[in-house]
């Protein structure tokens, strides 16, 4: 009598090759593990061999089944204004999923009565209790190596190495880390904060020296000094002169020497003259026209 499934041996050997190399993506790894578990269950039912495509299809069905239960339970939880799922959510989800393929189950309608309790009315839980009671355990064939939490490959994304409990219990662990605000330079992704052509947000630019909001305050609580609002490129000094009698405002460029008054035409080209006639009364005060 054949004691091992042919495909189980093949999947085990393929899994060992994938675990020795680090190129398997998390989804491939989880799918391979699921395939081994499903083949073990096949063997426990009585199958001696299986087609490869059939095994893959059954594994896919199993993973999608689990995701369907989880998603349904999560939506039950969320609709009750909670984030942590409890047994009632899970039972309702199981009822939903099981009733789809078995054409209904016992105890679903009276589950929510105030006098009923969970185990007495739920057919799904009763079936599960019977299953657990009557069936022998089938432990998983191989020990699963725990993904190294500091490495970038494996089930965890590169940003999770900093999580642990530093973000508080309100943040789930499977979410990626917060983006870092260290002057736009991320320790995990070094090139992230810097753009190709040196573009940056105008609030953080050198030219703006005001204390705009929170971005100018670094972690120590001191104001971030960014160039002090000074303009980088040198410019010529500009001097404005307000005329006394006729109200002429002249923009004189200091570089082109002011002393050259004989060259009036050139000066006139460079000077913007605003003439405004005003009357003054006897006291010398301006009278608006």
């Amino acid at each position: 009598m054949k004691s091992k499934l042919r495909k189980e041996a093949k999947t085990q050997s393929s899994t060992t090759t994938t675990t020795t190399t680090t190129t398997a993506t998390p989804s491939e790894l989880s799918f391979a593990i699921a395939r081994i578990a499903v083949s073990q269950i096949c063997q426990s039912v009585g199958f001696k061999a299986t087609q490869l495509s059939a095994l893959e299809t059954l594994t896919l069905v199993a993973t999608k089944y689990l995701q369907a239960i989880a998603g349904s339970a999560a939506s039950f939880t969320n609709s009750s204004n909670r984030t942590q799922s409890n047994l009632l959510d899970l039972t309702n989800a199981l009822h939903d999923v099981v009733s789809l393929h078995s054409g209904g189950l016992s105890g679903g309608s009276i589950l929510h009565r105030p006098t009923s309790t969970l185990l007495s009315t739920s057919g799904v839980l009763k079936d599960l209790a019977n299953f657990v009671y009557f069936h022998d355990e089938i432990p998983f064939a191989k020990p699963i190596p725990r993904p190294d939490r500091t490495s970038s490959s494996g089930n965890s994304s590169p940003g999770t190495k900093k999580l642990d409990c530093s973000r508080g219990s309100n943040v789930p662990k499977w979410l990626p880390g917060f983006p870092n605000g260290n002057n736009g330079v991320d320790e995990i992704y070094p090139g992230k904060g810097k753009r190709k052509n040196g573009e940056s947000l105008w609030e953080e630019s050198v030219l703006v020296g005001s204390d705009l909001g929170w971005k100018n305050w670094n972690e120590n609580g001191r104001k971030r000094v960014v160039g002090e609002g000074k303009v980088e490129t040198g410019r010529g000094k500009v001097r404005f002169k307000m005329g006394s009698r006729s109200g002429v405002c002249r923009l004189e460029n200091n570089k082109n020497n002011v002393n050259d008054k004989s060259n009036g035409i050139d000066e006139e080209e460079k000077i913007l003259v605003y003439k405004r006639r005003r009357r003054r009364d006897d006291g010398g005060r301006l009278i608006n026209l």
Partner: protein
Amino acid sequence: MNHNQQPGDGTHEDDAALSDFLASLMDYTPTIPDELVEHYLAKSGFQCPDVRLQCKARQAAVVKDKRDKQQKDKRLILTMEDLSRALREYGVNVKHQEYFADSPSTGMDPASRDE
């Protein structure tokens, strides 16, 4: 409140039965490993510190599914035909190749074959 009217022994028994059931779940080691179940639960947004019930439910469902595929043949091989037939009863439509041909012109009328 309605549910305070009958606190009687029935609820206590059921509570005890429920806690026994959950304790038995903790003892039982399911074939599908906990890490795998946690991975798929996290992928679907399910948050719960205890995941044993999920694993059991999944295994029970898969076992039921497999039992339906048993054939009268003594040497049981899981084939795509049986699988698709059984899955159709559960509402899952799986398409598969009916047969494999040796060459592109297999089964064609000999007069229409290009030679």
